[in-house]
C-alpha cells in the first residue's frame, strides 16, 4: 500500500511534467480542492460510525494535547539548525521551519518580510514536507509511533494529510490530528513573522 501511494505520487508528478496540457493547472487545482472536500466528508462519516466521538475526545489523554507544541518547537529548532548548517542564517531557517508545511502562507509571509528568495525557499520546503508526509506517515503509523507520525504533516493534518492519518491511524489519531492541524494553522501566521522579525 505504501509503495502504491509513493508510485501514485510519482506518477502524478510525471503526468504533471510531461502530459498536463497548458492552461489546465487551474482545473487540476479545483480537482484537488473538491477531492479534498469529498474526502473530509467521507472521513467525517467514517468517524461518526466509529462510536461516540465526544466521549472519545474527552477520553484522549490530556498529555497528548502537548503534541502541537512539541511539533512546532521541533520544527523551528531544526529549521534554525539547518539554516546555520546551510549558512543562510539561524533565524531565517527557524522562520522557514515555522511554516509547518503550510506552503502558501509561509511562502507569502517570508517573501514579504525577508525577500523573494526566502519566500521561494519556504514555499518549496513546505511542499517537500507535504510530500514527505505522504511517504513517512504510513511507516511511522505501522511502527506504532502514532503521535509522532501526525507531527510530520504539520498544519496539513486537518486537510490534505488527514485521509492518510484516518487510513493508517484510526479514529483516535484522526481526532488528535484535527486538533494538531488547528493549533498549527493558528500558530503559523504568528510564528513565521515573529521569527522573521528576529533576523538581525
Amino acid at each position, binding site marked *: 500500500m505504501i509503495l502504491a*501511494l509513493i508510485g501514485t*505520487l510519482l*506518477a*502524478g*508528478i510525471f503526468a*504533471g*511534467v510531461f502530459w*498536463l496540457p497548458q492552461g*489546465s493547472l487551474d482545473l*487540476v487545482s479545483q*480537482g*484537488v480542492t473538491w477531492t*479534498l*472536500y469529498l*474526502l*473530509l*466528508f467521507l*472521513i*467525517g*462519516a*467514517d*468517524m*461518526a*460510525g466509529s462510536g461516540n466521538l465526544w466521549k472519545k475526545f474527552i477520553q484522549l*489523554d490530556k498529555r497528548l494535547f502537548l503534541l502541537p507544541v*512539541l511539533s512546532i*518547537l*521541533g*520544527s523551528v529548532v*531544526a*529549521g534554525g*539548525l*539547518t539554516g546555520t548548517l*546551510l549558512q543562510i542564517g539561524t533565524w531565517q*531557517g527557524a522562520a*522557514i*521551519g515555522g511554516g509547518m508545511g503550510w506552503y502558501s502562507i509561509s511562502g507569502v509571509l517570508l517573501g514579504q518580510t525577508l525577500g523573494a528568495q526566502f519566500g*521561494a*525557499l519556504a*514555499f*518549496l*520546503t513546505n*511542499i*517537500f*514536507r*507535504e*510530500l514527505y*508526509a505522504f511517504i513517512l506517515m504510513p511507516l511511522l503509523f505501522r511502527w*506504532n*509511533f*502514532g*503521535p*509522532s507520525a*501526525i*507531527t*510530520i504533516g504539520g498544519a496539513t493534518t*486537518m486537510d*490534505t494529510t488527514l*485521509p492518510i492519518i*484516518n487510513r493508517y491511524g484510526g479514529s483516535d489519531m484522526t481526532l488528535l490530528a484535527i486538533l494538531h492541524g488547528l493549533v498549527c494553522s493558528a500558530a503559523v501566521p504568528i510564528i513565521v513573522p515573529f521569527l522573521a522579525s528576529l533576523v538581525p
Partner: protein
Amino acid sequence: MNTLLAALGCGLLFGFGLRRFPNLAKRIPFAITMGLFALIFAMGIQVGGSPEVMESVVEIGSQAALFALFTVTGSVLFSLPLALWWRKRQRRVPS
C-alpha cells in the same frame, strides 16, 4: 479552513444518519482509500505541472529537500517521548 471544517461536519451528520445502514457504512473506508489515491495523484500533477515549482526545484530543490527533511525530523524527535509514552500506554490498555 471553514469550508474544510464544514465538509467534515456535514460528513459527521451524514455518518450519524448512516448508522441505520451498516452495509453502506462498511463501504466508506474503501471510498476513502480510493479518494486518497485520487488526491495524491492530483497533488502530484499540481506539483509537476507548476512551472514555478519545477523551476525552483532546479534552483533550490536540494536546499528545500534538506530543510524539509530536517524540520520533519525535528518535529518527530521532539514528539518522540510523547509517542513512546503513548505506545507503552496502548500496550497496557488495548483499545
